[in-house]
Each structure stands twice: as C-alpha cells, then as structure tokens.
C-alpha cells in the first residue's frame, strides 16, 4: 500500500501531468497517421495496403514486449511477493491482449487484399500470435474469475511464465510444420524496409507506444484505487 493521501496539491499535479501526457499522445497519433497515410510514399507492389504495416508492426512489437514484461514481472512477483509486480504483470497482460487483438485483425485485413486470404495457417507468426492471444485470454480469465488475493496472483504468475516460455516453441514448431507442408500460399512481402517506410514506422511506433503507456497509467491507477477501496472497506467491515 502506498501513501494514499498526499493532499490535494499532488493530486492536482498528477491530473495535470496526465492531461499533458494525454494531449501529447493524441498529437503524436495524429502526426503518425499523417506520416503514414499521407506523407509516406505508396509502396510499389502492395500499394495502399502496405500502410496497414504502420499499425500492424508497431503493435506487434508492443504485444511481444508486453508479454515479456508479464514474464519478468511474474518472476519478480514470485520471488519478492511484492504486489506491485503483480499489478505490473496484470496491466501488461491486458495491454498485451489489446495490442495482440489489433495485430490479429490488422494482419487479417492486410492479408485479404495482399495474400488473397484472411488467414493462413502456414504462417508461423500468425498462428503463434493467435496462440499467444489464447494463453493470455486464459490468464486474464483466471484473474477475473478468481478472488483478488495472493493465491490468484501466484497462480497467474506461473501461467504468465509458462505462457511466455511457450511462445518460441510454438513459433518454431509451426514454422517447421509449414516448412514440411508447403501450402499453396504466400510468403509475406514485407522485406527490409527503406527509409521512406522507416520514418513513418518510427512515428507510429512512438505514437502507439504512448497510447499504450497511457492505458497502462490509467490501469495502474485503477489497481491502486481499488486496493485503497478494499482497505477502506476492510477497515470498516462494509460489505
């Protein structure tokens, strides 16, 4: 439990900082969108569809980064039992789900015009991302169905660690499976990006990372406030 009431002044500063960060984030998203939709040149092969890249790839980075955070935070929680790590793991898992969801549908909507198929079971990245989504949905279900106590935190930490360990193995086995069963499709045509693609990509990455951090901040606040609420309720035996 952190010092719950730092007076009105710090709260006001907090709100101001938050608003500032939100405003910057919003502007960043606008800039990134301008850079990727308007300023970036049309790609020769995929044309306008390549612009989905600027959503898909940054969010894929974020998704994989957040499950890494879940993994590290889960280990930290199991070893230290400090609830702050558990909060971090939970927040990152939710962020992971949000970004993985976007990765999945943007990938599907990219695949349809470019590959001619909504989904391809022969693409290891696609299948791995779906499996990842399933694991972390299970993780979050576990968290939401269980009571919010140390036990649930411990249980979900273990699942969080196993889920992370599972990702590379899944990727590798699906890759190998595809390799041996060459289906009549499609290699992704995202090759090494040129600088004209790289800059809008970096902007998008920055912008969506900012949105994600914003979500993380609010999420963490909720966790803290609900902890505070629990404590107050417990102190007064209010049901």
């Amino acid at each position, binding site marked *: 439990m952190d010092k719950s009431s730092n007076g009105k002044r710090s709260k006001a500063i907090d709100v101001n900082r938050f608003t500032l960060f939100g405003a910057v984030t919003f502007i960043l998203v606008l800039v990134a969108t301008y850079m990727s939709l308007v300023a970036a040149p049309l790609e020769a092969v995929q044309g306008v569809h390549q612009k989905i890249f600027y959503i898909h790839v940054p969010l894929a980075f974020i998704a994989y980064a957040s499950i890494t955070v879940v993994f590290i935070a889960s280990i930290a929680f*199991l070893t230290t039992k400090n609830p702050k790590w558990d909060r971090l793991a939970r927040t990152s898992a939710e962020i992971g789900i949000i970004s993985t969801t976007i990765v999945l549908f943007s990938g599907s909507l990219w695949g349809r015009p470019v590959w001619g198929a909504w989904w391809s079971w022969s693409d290891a990245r696609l299948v791995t991302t779906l*499996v990842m989504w*399933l694991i972390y949905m*299970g*993780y979050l279900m*576990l968290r939401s169905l269980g009571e919010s106590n140390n*036990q649930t935190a411990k249980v979900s930490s273990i*699942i969080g*660690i196993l889920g992370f360990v599972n990702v590379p193995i899944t990727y590798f086995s699906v890759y190998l499976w595809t390799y041996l069963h060459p289906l009549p499709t499609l290699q992704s045509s995202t090759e090494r990006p040129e600088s004209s693609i790289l800059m809008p990509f970096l902007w998008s990455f920055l912008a969506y990372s900012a949105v994600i951090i914003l979500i993380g901040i609010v999420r963490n606040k909720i966790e803290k406030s609900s902890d505070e609420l629990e404590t107050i309720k417990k102190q007064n035996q209010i049901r």
Partner: protein
Amino acid sequence: MSKSIPRIDQQVFRLFYRELLIEFRAKEQLTTMVIFALTTIIIFQFSFEMRAGNIKVLIPGVLWISVFFASMLSLNRSFSRDQEENTSRGIASTPIDPLSIYISKVLTNTIFLCALEVILLPIITVLLNSSILYINLIPVLLVGNIGVSATGAIVAATLANTKSRETLLPVILLPLLLPVLLGCITATGAIIDEQPITKYGHWVQIVAIYDIIFTLASGLMFHFAIEN
C-alpha cells in the same frame, strides 16, 4: 518412521506408490479416461465418416485429442481429490520436497496415459478398421505423454486452489500444449503412412525439447503452486 528425511528418489517413489495404490483401490481415473476416450472416438467416427471418405487420415488427430482430454479428466481428479481430502495439506506439512510431488504427479499421469494408449490403440484398430499398431509409435507416444503430463501437472496444481479449475484447465492447457499436439499428430501421421524416420524424427526431438523445457520450468516453480 525414521527421523531423517528420505532422499528425493525415495520421496518420489513413495508418492508414486501412493498414487498407484489409490488408483488400484478406487479404479477411478483410468476407468474414466478409457471410457471417455472411447466415447470421443465413437463421436469422431460418426461425425467424420460421412464427409471424410477415408477415416484413416483422421486417426492421429482423433488419438491425440482423446488422449489430451482424457488426461485433463485424470489431472483434474488427481489434484482436486488431494484438495478435497486435505491430502495436499498433509503432504505439505511433511518435509517432502515439492519437486518430488511434481515428479510423482508427472510420472503417475504419464503411466496412466501409457496404459490408456495400450488399451486404446487395439480398440482403434478394431473399431476404425485400420491398424495403427506400429512399434515406431512408442517414442512418439512417450514424449507426447510426458509433455501432456509435465505441463498438465503444473497447470492443474496451480488451478487446484481456484474456484474455476474445471472450466479453466482446458482453456489454459490447450494453447500451452499446442507444440506437443502438433508434433505428435504430425509424427503419428507419418508413422501410419509408413514413412521413414527422417520424415518425423525431428518432431520427436522437438517434443522432447518441449518436455525438457517445461519439466524444468515447472519443476522450478512447483513449490509456488502448492504453497499456501
């Protein structure tokens, strides 16, 4: 009872013996598993026979899906029984290493799965009219059983203390076990098609690697799963 703490292999052996004794007396887990797997096969037979002309192509999938779900039943029972009868608390109060509890659970479940397959394979051969009794299948079945048990045991153990264990076990376990199922189904298919070992040997290796990684990771974390 001697005062000194038994060595880990003795601990594992005693716990393993305990599991087998319970099963021998109650005849609960294995019977349920066999009947359940059989029902699954019959359902698959009816649902696919009409559309897939050659049921033989579906056998690897049918076999491993029924093994997976049968193991789910067994694991669930194994841990919730310990929970209900307060055995887990009893064991926790002894100086037994949690690692040996984990190993004994994996061992028991692996043995049960092997027994299930020994019964199931001839039945599939008879009911689906296609022989799948190949000697090459043994390593595939073995690595697959260990993989399902290694991950299954830790997930079931962690969920045993939660309210929603029955619903969540398959939801969490299936994606975690995807590499095992993928590898085993592919390898079993290759063996049934009488392909040489070069066509499926790497799958056995991948599942073996999975087994090693998950056994180690779970072994390291198991004491968190059962401590209270």
